[in-house]
C-alpha cells in the first residue's frame, strides 16, 4: 500500500507543471474570449495551430536536446537555411521531391556533426551550437541576401490546401506537426532510446555506469534536433512561400522558453513534448491577445518573459518541495 502512495506522490509532482501549463492555456484562452468578441471560436484555436505548427516541430526537436541537459541554439539558423536553400534549389529547377529529402538530410547530418563534436571532444554544447548558428546564418547570406520567392506547384499546394471543419481552416502542414508530436511522444515513452534520453539527463555518469549508450544517445538527440529544425524549415517555407536569410532571428529562445513553460527542466531529465506543444500554444495565445488589444508587438515579449519568470519560480518551488520530501523520507528511514 505504501508503494502506491509513493507512486501517486511522484506522479503528482511530475505532472504538476504540465497541469499548470494546460490550466494556464485554458485560462488565457478564456480571458481572451471574455474580453473580445469573436475571440472564442474554433478558428482562433485552429489559427494557433496553423501559425504555430513550424514552431511546434522545432520546439519538439529542441526538447530532446534539453532533456539530455544540453542546449541547441542553432535551430533558427537551420530553419532559415532550409528555407533559403530549398527556395534556391527550386528556382534552379529541381523538383520538390528531390529538394525536401535533401534539406532534411542536411539538417540531420548537421545536427549529427554538432553532436559528434560535443560528444567526442567534450566541447560546450552552447559554444558548438552557437558556431553552428553563425555557420548556417552565414551560408544563408552566401546563397542570397534577398528574399527568394517559391513558385513550385507542390509547395503552393501545401501552402493553400486546407480542411474546412465547422468554419475553421486547418492547413495540411498542421498534420505534419501532429505526426511529429505523436512520434516524439511514442519514442520518448515507449522506446529504449527515449528512456535513455531521460536517464542521460537525470545523471549522465550513472547512465553510463548502467551501461546505457550515452554517447550514441547524445549524438542522436542533436541529430533529431537538426532534423526537426529542417522539417520546421520546410513547413515554414510552405507557410511563407519564400526563403529569406534573416527570417526567424532569435527564434531559438522562443523555442527554449516554450519548452520551459511546458515544464522541461534545463538541467535535463524532466519534461514532456506535449508540455512543450502547449507552451508554444500559450505564446501563440499571448500574441493573439496582444494583436486583439492593438498593442505594439514587443508587449508579446514582455508578457512571455513574465510568464517564463512565473513558471521558473513555480518549478523551483516544486523542486524544493520534492527535495524536502526526499529529505524527510531519508530521515525517517534513518530513524527506523
Amino acid at each position, binding site marked *: 500500500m505504501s508503494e502506491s502512495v509513493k507512486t501517486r506522490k511522484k506522479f503528482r509532482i511530475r505532472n504538476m507543471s504540465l497541469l499548470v501549463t494546460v490550466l494556464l492555456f485554458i485560462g488565457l484562452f478564456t480571458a481572451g474570449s471574455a474580453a473580445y468578441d469573436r475571440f472564442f471560436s474554433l478558428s482562433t484555436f485552429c489559427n494557433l495551430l496553423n501559425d504555430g505548427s513550424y514552431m511546434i516541430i522545432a520546439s519538439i526537436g529542441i526538447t530532446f536536446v534539453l532533456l539530455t541537459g544540453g542546449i541547441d541554439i542553432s535551430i533558427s539558423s537551420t530553419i532559415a537555411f532550409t528555407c533559403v536553400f530549398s527556395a534556391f534549389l527550386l528556382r534552379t529547377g529541381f523538383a520538390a521531391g528531390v529538394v525536401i529529402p535533401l534539406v532534411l538530410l542536411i539538417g540531420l547530418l548537421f545536427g549529427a556533426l554538432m553532436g559528434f563534436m560535443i560528444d567526442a*571532444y567534450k566541447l560546450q554544447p552552447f559554444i558548438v551550437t552557437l558556431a553552428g548558428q553563425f555557420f548556417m546564418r*552565414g551560408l544563408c547570406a552566401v546563397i542570397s541576401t534577398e528574399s527568394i520567392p517559391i513558385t513550385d506547384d507542390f509547395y503552393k499546394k501545401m501552402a493553400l490546401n486546407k480542411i474546412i471543419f465547422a468554419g475553421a481552416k486547418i492547413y495540411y502542414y498542421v498534420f505534419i506537426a501532429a505526426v511529429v508530436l505523436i512520434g516524439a511522444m511514442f519514442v520518448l515513452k515507449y522506446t529504449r532510446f527515449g528512456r535513455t534520453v531521460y536517464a542521460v539527463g537525470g545523471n549522465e555518469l550513472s547512465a553510463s555506469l548502467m551501461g546505457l549508450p550515452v554517447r550514441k544517445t547524445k549524438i542522436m538527440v542533436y541529430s533529431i534536433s537538426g532534423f526537426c529544425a529542417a522539417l520546421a524549415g520546410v513547413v515554414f517555407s510552405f507557410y511563407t512561400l519564400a526563403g529569406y536569410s534573416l527570417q526567424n532571428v532569435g527564434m531559438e529562445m522562443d523555442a527554449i522558453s516554450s519548452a520551459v513553460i511546458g515544464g522541461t527542466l534545463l538541467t535535463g531529465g524532466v519534461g514532456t513534448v506535449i508540455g512543450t506543444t502547449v507552451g508554444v500554444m500559450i505564446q501563440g495565445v499571448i500574441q493573439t491577445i496582444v494583436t486583439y488589444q492593438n498593442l505594439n508587438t514587443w*508587449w508579446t515579449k514582455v508578457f512571455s518573459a513574465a510568464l517564463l519568470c512565473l513558471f521558473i519560480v513555480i518549478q523551483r518551488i516544486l523542486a524544493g518541495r520534492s527535495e524536502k520530501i526526499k529529505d524527510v523520507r531519508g530521515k525517517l528511514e534513518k530513524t527506523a
Partner: protein
Amino acid sequence: MEKIKKLSKYQGFWPVIVLLAILLINGIVSGGSFFEIKIVDAHLYGRLIDILRNGSKLMLLATGMTFVLATGGTDISVGSVMAISGAIACSIVDGRILPGAGQNVQVAILLALLGGMLCGAWNGFLVSKIKIQPIVATMILMVAGRGIAQLITDGKIVTVTSDSYYFINGGYILGLPFPLFIVLFVVVLVLLFTKKTAFGLFLESTGCNPVSSHFAGINVNNIKWLVYTFCGVTAAVAGLIESAGIKGADCNNAGLFMELDAILAVAIGGTSLNGGRFSVPASLAGALIIQSITTSVYAMGIAPEITAVVKAVIVICICLFQSPEFKEKMGKRFSGHQQERMAKPV
C-alpha cells in the same frame, strides 16, 4: 625554448598568438597597409585603431562576462541591457524623460549605469537567491529587456544631438579614441581587485566547487550576486558607447547578438564555461580576435555575409585545440612517443 614553454602555460598565450597571426595574415594580404597608422589633427587613424575602438564594447562585455562564466554561470541578457542603458541615456539627453535633469549628460550616464546595475542585480538575485539556472534566469531579462527599452523610448528610435554625448564614442584623448580609456580604466580596476585582494581566489573557488567553497566559509551567494551586478554595469557602459556611436538609441538592434559574441570571446580566451580558472587579459584577446576577424573580412574585400561562416570555423578550430580529448587524438595519430610521454604521471 624553456621560456616559451613557460609562457605557453599562461591562459592568454594561445589567444594572443592567434590574434597576432590574424593580424599578420592581414598585414601580408594587404601588403602592409593594414598596419599603417596615420596622424590626422593629432588623432591616430588606421585599421589597428579601428579594431581597438570598435572592439571596446566587446572587450567591456567580455570583462564582465569572464567573471560570470568563472562562477559557472552565463549571462545572455547583456545585449538587452545594452539596449536599456542606451535608451535611458538617450531619452534623458533628448529630454524625453526626466526633463528636470535638464538634458544633463552626466546625469544621463549615471542613471544609465544605475539601470544596468539594477538589471544585473535582478539577474544576480534570481541566480543566487532563488537559485534558478543562470541561462534561464538571464533569459527572462533577455526576452523582456528590449520590451522595457521600448517602453522607455515609447517605441521610437531616439536620436540625440549633444557633442558631449558623442564624445563617449568619438572622442580622442592624447590621440587615442576615448572608448579605449574606458576599457583601460575598467580593466585596471578589475585586475587590481582580483589580483591584489582575495576576491579573485574566492571567485575561482566558487566556480570550481560552490559547495566546498561554502563550507570553506566563502559567501558564494553574495559573490554570484556581485558578479552579475558587475556584468550588468559593464553591459550598460557598452550600451552607452554603442548609442553614442550611432547617435541615438535603437532598441531593436542595439547590442543584438552581442551576448553571443561576448561569451564567445571569453571561451576563445580559454575560460571554461563550467567555471573555475579565468583570465581577463585572455578574454580581452578573445574579444580582439573576434573584432579583427570582422574588420579583416571587410578589409580583404570579402563579402561581409561570410563573416559569420569565418567566425564559426575559427571558433570551432580554437575550441578543438583547447580540448584535451582532441589533442590526445591528434597526438596519437601523428606521434606515438608523444603519447607515452603524456601518459607518464607528471
